[in-house]
């Protein structure tokens, strides 16, 4: 069975794809779907959901359109999730590849460095970084990347170490290719599939991290985000439950979709593993 057939027949993964496409569509077309500016007061505050057709999810403490806020929040979540994962890959992949390929002192040094970052409680470090460098989209993205690269480095190192022992690497060595070329052209492409799986799960974790930071008040003050919405509504939960409820559902749907896709990719890329788990 090809990769695509295996992925397509996985119900969970397809549900994830549909949900994710919906979230992306809402994020991209937010200005077309919602006429209201998410920062603008449009109605009286604390309007309950489903009471007016044009304000489906009601209004918040300042009379702003909750549905529009959710749509614009999707942009921030997806953007931060994606970019921070890319940055984490940019740190983790080269470090892990060098450690796994060259071994010896390089490996020792790189792994000590990685271990250090893995020991530090990562959410606490993210809080410290964002608090000190002022919350902006870029500082939040960077902070999330800084706390999420260590597992990537470890994974890539382990994969590179196992691929390096294969025969085609010896063949490339004999053919006179330089070490760098072998690493980049021969070894790394063969480690791609576990990296892809890990990356899709990392986007999900990054979205949770971003929302947690903005819940604590460490969000970019110029960007509407789901975590900020819940944080702002925290104190009025007794009178206006919907202000905390809907953004949370949005986060769950997005994170769930990404996790389902990640698992689907994992099963489709490593078919024997999934059979062992008794799922196929």
């Amino acid at each position: 069975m090809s990769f695509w057939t295996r992925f397509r027949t996985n119900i969970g993964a397809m549900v994830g794809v549909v949900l994710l496409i919906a979230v992306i569509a809402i994020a991209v077309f937010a200005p077309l779907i919602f006429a209201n500016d998410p920062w603008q007061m449009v109605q009286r505050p604390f309007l309950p959901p489903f009471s007016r057709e044009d304000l489906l999810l009601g209004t918040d403490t300042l009379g702003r359109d909750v549905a529009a806020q959710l749509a614009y929040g999707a942009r921030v979540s997806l953007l931060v999730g994606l970019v921070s994962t890319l940055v984490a890959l940019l740190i983790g992949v080269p470090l892990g590849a060098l450690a796994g390929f060259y071994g010896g002192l390089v490996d020792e040094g790189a792994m000590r460095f990685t271990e250090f970052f893995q020991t530090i409680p990562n959410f606490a470090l993210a809080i410290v970084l964002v608090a000190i460098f002022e919350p902006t989209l870029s500082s939040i993205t960077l902070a999330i990347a800084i706390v999420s690269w260590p597992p990537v480095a470890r994974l890539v190192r382990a994969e590179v170490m196992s691929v390096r022992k294969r025969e085609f690497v010896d063949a490339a060595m004999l053919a006179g290719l330089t070490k760098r070329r072998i690493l980049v052209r021969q070894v790394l492409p063969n480690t791609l599939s576990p990296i892809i799986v890990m990356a899709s799960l990392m986007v999900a974790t990054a979205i949770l991290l971003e929302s947690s930071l903005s819940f604590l008040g460490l969000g970019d003050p110029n960007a509407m985000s789901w975590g900020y919405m819940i944080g702002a509504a925290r104190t009025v939960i007794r009178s206006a439950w919907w202000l905390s409820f809907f953004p949370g559902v949005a986060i769950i749907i997005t994170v769930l979709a990404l996790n389902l896709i990640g698992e689907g990719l994992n099963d489709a890329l490593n078919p024997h593993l999934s059979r062992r788990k008794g799922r196929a």
Partner: protein
Amino acid sequence: MSVLAIIVSRLAKAALTLLAIAVLNFCLLHAAPGDPAVVLAGEAGAADEQMIAQLRERFGLDQPFGVQLWKYVSGVAMLDLGYSFRQGAPVIDLIADRLPATLLLTGVAFVISLVCGIALGVAAAARVGKPQDSLLTTFALLFYATPLYWAALMAVLVFSVWLGWLPGFGYETVGAGYTGWARVIDIAKHLVLPALTLGLFFMAVYMRMTRASMLEVSNADFVKTGRAKGLSDKVIRRRHILRNAILPVVTLAGLQAGQLIGGAVLTETVFAWPGIGRLMFESLAARDYNTILGVFLVSAAMVILFNIVTDIVYRLVDPRIGARA
């Protein structure tokens, strides 16, 4: 290696890590935008010129970088984490005051999540492919995607505001003047919701891990042997599969301790639980960097300590680990 030698080497490594974190903290304080003296003073002292001049002198901010670093790091080594101008107390005192509440919360959450996670994982693996398994797996996926703080808020809404079963915030009933067992019960009641919501996410993690690990081990040769000998399914599961499947789960659980402490910041914020996580949250709004960095250092120390303890426990439980290392 004897256990003692391991403890000594681990403690030495831990000291090095903490030293590195202290250096990192120092660099962060200096990397913060603005005058370090103003940064140290936090929002509270920002307006007072004289105080800032005093700070500059006291922390040697006019001296070379190396001297400053030495002063800071040696201070941390003597448990001097600086002074919180916002709260008017040394940071170490503030943390020592709040630490027991955090230890109680994270400890209980850890035990709940590990016990329930393993139990549910075993149950799911035993019924693999059946509706019960799908149901448990789906719930685990959902909890895995749920933000901690949102689960906490919803728990407050349902069990405290709507149903009125459990208190929704605080550590104990203020002004009730309970003593002895009455106080213990009161605190336990306040602990239920925070510990459950903090443990929920980790329960999902441990459940998935246990399930996968159980299924993995159930293909091993010794399981087939057991079956061929005519042992009952139950005995095989409990005595042969579970005992082997549980080690990677416990290893993972040890590694996850750091996440648990990070999660405590969110849980304590929602439930107004007077621990170091709540202290960190309060310091964020006040831009009280000394306290933020102090909590950061102490939480890292907690994680390291926890890892050492779990490491030693495994070596005692499973002698193979000591032989391999």
